[in-house]
């Protein structure tokens, strides 16, 4: 077990845990954002650089700070480590730069994009990015590609997080798409437009942090914030069958897997559940899905409040705020 401090909050985690996961155990605002790391996909992380944090003290044995900002999704913790995320202006500055880089070639066509409203990049740019672009050159453009008849690939929106290729590798038995080209020219593509028709290939829609991979059956049907998300399940032989139905009236517009508080899917669902069952009668509805009130999807969204849960959440927040007010780590460690 290693004991470390993140933004003044102490946490004890097993050895080998990454800083990001340690921060997630604390929860709240101090969790670094992550665009490429995905807890349920192996070997993801280390590509997008938005989760950079400052390590003010390496460990109890060697309390020197790490020379550069480190990617928290790839750096294991050490006993006595002191990590700064929100409390370090250097980190916030670096993150702002990273967001600017991610947006360099992003078309910012949010008014058209189906992902708008639940897009990680949109949230990230809103919280950490600059309001204006300094980029004057033409952005790279690609043709839209149909990956199979159910998935649409907008390569222009892609930030090359590689999550979808890991889905191809780890969830399906035969990957038929990947990243071609290098550097600025790299793109997600299939082998000569080959269909991706594996049973679990639809999950690449859910893991995509931007609107590069979108559900064709939901294409332009409705903005997410006009739909009503419901938790539902059905007996499925291939997957857990636990899904979210995005409904409008009695119509099921879209079916997606359930994402946790960090926007990650724990139970992947099969393509049959995702694409074939668009009838309310196919599903057992459990109730309205909890949507964070800061999300635009929470507009006109009503759900039953669990008072016990609310009390716990308030207490957790208070604890977190108290931690934030703790005195800054000793400056002697930084010099």
């Amino acid at each position, binding site marked *: 077990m290693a004991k470390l401090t993140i933004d003044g909050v102490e946490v004890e985690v097993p050895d080998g845990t990454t800083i990001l996961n340690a921060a997630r155990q604390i929860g709240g605002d101090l969790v670094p954002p992550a665009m490429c790391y995905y807890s349920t996909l192996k070997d993801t992380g280390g590509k997008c650089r938005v989760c950079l944090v400052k390590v003010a003290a390496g460990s109890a044995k060697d309390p020197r700070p790490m020379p550069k900002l480190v990617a928290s999704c790839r750096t294991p913790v050490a006993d006595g480590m002191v990590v700064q995320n929100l409390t370090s202006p250097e980190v916030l500055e670096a993150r702002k730069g990273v967001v600017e880089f991610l947006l360099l070639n992003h078309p910012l*066509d*949010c*008014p*058209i994009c189906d992902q*708008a409203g639940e897009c990680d990049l949109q949230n990230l740019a809103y919280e950490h990015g600059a309001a204006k672009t300094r980029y*004057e050159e033409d952005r790279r453009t690609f043709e839209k590609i149909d990956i199979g008849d159910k998935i649409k690939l907008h390569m222009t929106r892609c930030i090359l997080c590689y999550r979808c290729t890991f889905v191809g590798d780890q969830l399906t038995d035969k990957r038929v798409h990947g990243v071609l080209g290098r550097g600025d020219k790299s793109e997600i593509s299939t082998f000569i437009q080959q269909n991706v028709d594996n049973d679990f290939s639809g999950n690449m829609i859910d893991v995509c942090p931007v609107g590069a991979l979108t559900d064709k059956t939901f*294409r*332009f*049907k*409705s*903005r997410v*914030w*006009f739909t009503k998300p419901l938790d539902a399940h059905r007996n499925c032989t291939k997957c857990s069958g636990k899904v979210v139905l995005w409904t409008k009236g009695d119509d099921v517009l879209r079916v997606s897997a359930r994402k946790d508080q960090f926007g990650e899917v724990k139970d992947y669902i099969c393509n049959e559940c995702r694409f074939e069952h668009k009838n309310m009668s196919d599903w057992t509805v459990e109730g309205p899905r909890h949507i964070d009130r800061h999300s*635009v999807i929470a*507009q006109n969204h009503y759900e039953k409040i669990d008072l016990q849960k609310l009390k716990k959440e308030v207490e957790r927040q208070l604890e977190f705020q108290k931690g934030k007010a703790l005195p800054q780590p000793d400056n002697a460690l930084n010099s």
Partner: protein
Amino acid sequence: MLTNRSKVVVKKEMNFWERIYLPAIFGGVAVTIKHMFRRKTTVRFPEAKREISSVWRGQHVLKRDEKGAERCTACGLCAVACPAEAITMTAAERKKGEEGLYREEKYASVYEINMLRCIFCGLCEEACPKEAIFLTDRIVPTDFQRNDFVYGKDKLVEKVNERIDVSVRQTPAVTEFKKHKSLSHNR
């Protein structure tokens, strides 16, 4: 008592002049006659029109761009900003060959504003990222049927040959921004 203007009701006997009511009636008539010679507060509407501010918020218009393509891309921001929930829309995908009709890949196949719900606050105009919806100086006419107040695209989208000028409604900052033709938004 908060305003200090309340009066305590006194039920005292009226005297002779008060009992015949005539002075009170003439007093009332005098007020009426005085008002007859005052400047009229109303105008005879369809013939005469009252002067309105340049930022008056009247009937909406859905703008087209210079080439005549509809600017609206059905992003739904106006509808989510609308405090009266007066706006509804359905999106559709632009087909090949319709580039001259619709500016973006997605467009609103149905766009409806319920003018009975609308409170003309202008938040839709403010939310619009595509400069598609503007409130104009036109007054929404009266009608007999409630259904006729639900304005569809036929009434909202401006005609290609009779454009509605909204340049007076734009702030100097926007006008300045629009001069930069290199920005993708202005192309």
